């Protein structure tokens, strides 16, 4: 072989694309690998919280997620208050719950109608639904708006509310301001009852998983703004302060989001399915009635039916908001005094998409020495991958395109709070 050869300089750069993505590697009919990539560039919240003053945590951590800022604010407050040995109770606690109901209504309405439903209805998005069935989208928007309105009245604005403070609020709304929302909320309650029925008309793939469901135990009420214990249907029952003794976070190479899993246990699931399964009996009569009305069992194991459970929780949030407003008395002080103390504690809350845990360590001046934050999506990610593994097995013969759609839908079952996960850009299916 004496071919003439030549070397050509190219200096060509091939880029590694950085978007959310998912990889499924199939070998014949075997699933070799399922990987969910979350290319959320790291933002280092836990690092830069160090050195900040403890009262800043609710405002700063809200910025972790614009879709569920209240969840972060509440977990931060719960944790800080626990470190400092104070408890926010009575009407202030009720106001927090009301604010959070606003976030649930907003987030669940957005997710049910605008993110998840298009998958079931075969539309790329709600924008296209709006062309064919504007009333569906209008309903969604009005529901969303009512949720947002609660956040505006109680929290100052819908995204990154400004009225939340360690110890309570900066200013408590008057009873009249809250009562003004009642007619809208009554409409929202009616509509969410309809939503449950409407969601029940969708087609669900036959698919069940045997989950370990985990959620907060809020001591006799459906868990929303906080809870003292973290429990599961498989016997986990720990004070929230021991969260990190049982849950470890792992940084896996393919995702910048940390993944959580329980020591000596498998993956577990937080979020609507878990809350519902664990605390069905604590739902309001309206929400329970809605579930019964469509024959929804007390434990739902089909993740695709999370849209039903989310709708039931929408009913719950509306009914609960109405109850809280009815029972509201404007507190004399908008917050209780919180004097910083050296120490460390966990605090958690139930984001629309699952349990969110914060842990802070403070010095005696109130400066944050250490912060750990575990969002629900991080906890759910191993479970999502596990689901997908099970799920792909059933749908292996679909075309790549259809399989992609199905997988996206499956991921959306979990309402992950990252935009790259709400709509995937790249899904690679390798078949060999």
């Amino acid at each position: 072989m004496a071919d003439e050869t030549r070397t050509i300089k190219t200096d060509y750069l091939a880029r590694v694309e950085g978007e959310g993505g998912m990889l499924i590697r199939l070998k014949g009919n075997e699933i070799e690998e399922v990987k969910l990539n979350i290319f959320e560039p790291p933002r280092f919240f836990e690092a830069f919280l160090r050195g900040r003053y403890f009262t800043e945590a609710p405002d700063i951590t809200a910025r972790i997620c614009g879709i569920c800022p209240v969840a972060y604010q509440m977990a931060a407050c719960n944790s800080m208050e626990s470190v400092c040995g104070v408890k926010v109770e009575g009407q202030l606690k009720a106001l927090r719950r009301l604010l959070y109901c606003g976030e649930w209504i907003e987030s669940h309405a957005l997710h049910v109608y605008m993110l998840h439903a298009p998958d079931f209805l075969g539309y790329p998005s709600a924008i296209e639904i709006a062309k064919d069935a504007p009333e569906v989208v209008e309903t969604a928007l009005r529901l969303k708006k009512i949720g947002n309105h609660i956040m505006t009245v109680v929290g100052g604005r819908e995204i990154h509310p400004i009225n939340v403070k360690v110890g309570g609020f900066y200013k408590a709304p008057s009873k009249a301001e809250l009562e003004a929302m009642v007619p809208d909320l009554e409409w929202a309650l009616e509509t969410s009852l309809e939503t449950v029925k409407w969601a029940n008309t969708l087609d669900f793939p036959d698919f069940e998983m045997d989950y370990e469901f985990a959620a907060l135990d809020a001591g006799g009420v459906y868990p929303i703004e906080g809870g003292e214990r973290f429990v599961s249907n498989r016997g986990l029952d720990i004070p929230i302060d021991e969260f990190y003794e049982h849950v470890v976070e792992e940084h896996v190479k393919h995702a910048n989001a940390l993944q959580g899993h329980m020591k000596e246990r498998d993956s577990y699931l937080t979020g609507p399915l878990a809350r519902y399964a664990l605390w069905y009996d604590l739902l309001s009569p309206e929400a329970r009635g809605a579930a019964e009305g469509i024959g929804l069992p007390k434990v739902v194991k089909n993740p695709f039916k999370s849209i039903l459970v989310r709708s039931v929780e929408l009913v719950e949030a509306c009914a609960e908001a109405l109850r809280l407003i009815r029972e509201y008395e404007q507190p004399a002080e908008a917050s209780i005094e919180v004097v910083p103390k050296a120490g460390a504690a966990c605090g958690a809350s139930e984001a629309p998409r699952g349990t969110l845990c914060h842990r802070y360590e403070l010095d005696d001046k109130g400066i944050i020495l250490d912060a750990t934050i575990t969002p629900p999506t991080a906890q759910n990610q191993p479970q999502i991958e596990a689901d997908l593994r099970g799920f792909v097995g059933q749908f292996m013969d679909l075309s790549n395109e259809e399989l992609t759609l199905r997988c996206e839908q499956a991921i959306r079952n979990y309402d992950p709070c990252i935009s790259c996960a709400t709509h995937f850009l790249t899904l690679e299916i390798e078949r060999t």
Partner: protein
Amino acid sequence: MHEQATIRDLVATVLHVAEENDAKRVVRIKVKLGALSHFTPEHFEEHWVDVAAGTIAEGCKVEAELSEDLTDPNAHGVILEDVEIALG
């Protein structure tokens, strides 16, 4: 997961270069793997062999060098430095 896409892109580029120069075969390629590219030389070669199979780049020699410079603006990418082709 993006290794595949990157390599496909590189193979396409190499074939394009080869074609433009009327090459019969690609003899050797030289690449610099960015420190953050997620590749090791072995890893890269493995993928390369996969993707280049069935093209005129099949069986070519792969010289892959791993850069350790994290601050390089191209640290996330793979640079195809040169391509050696056989003519005629």
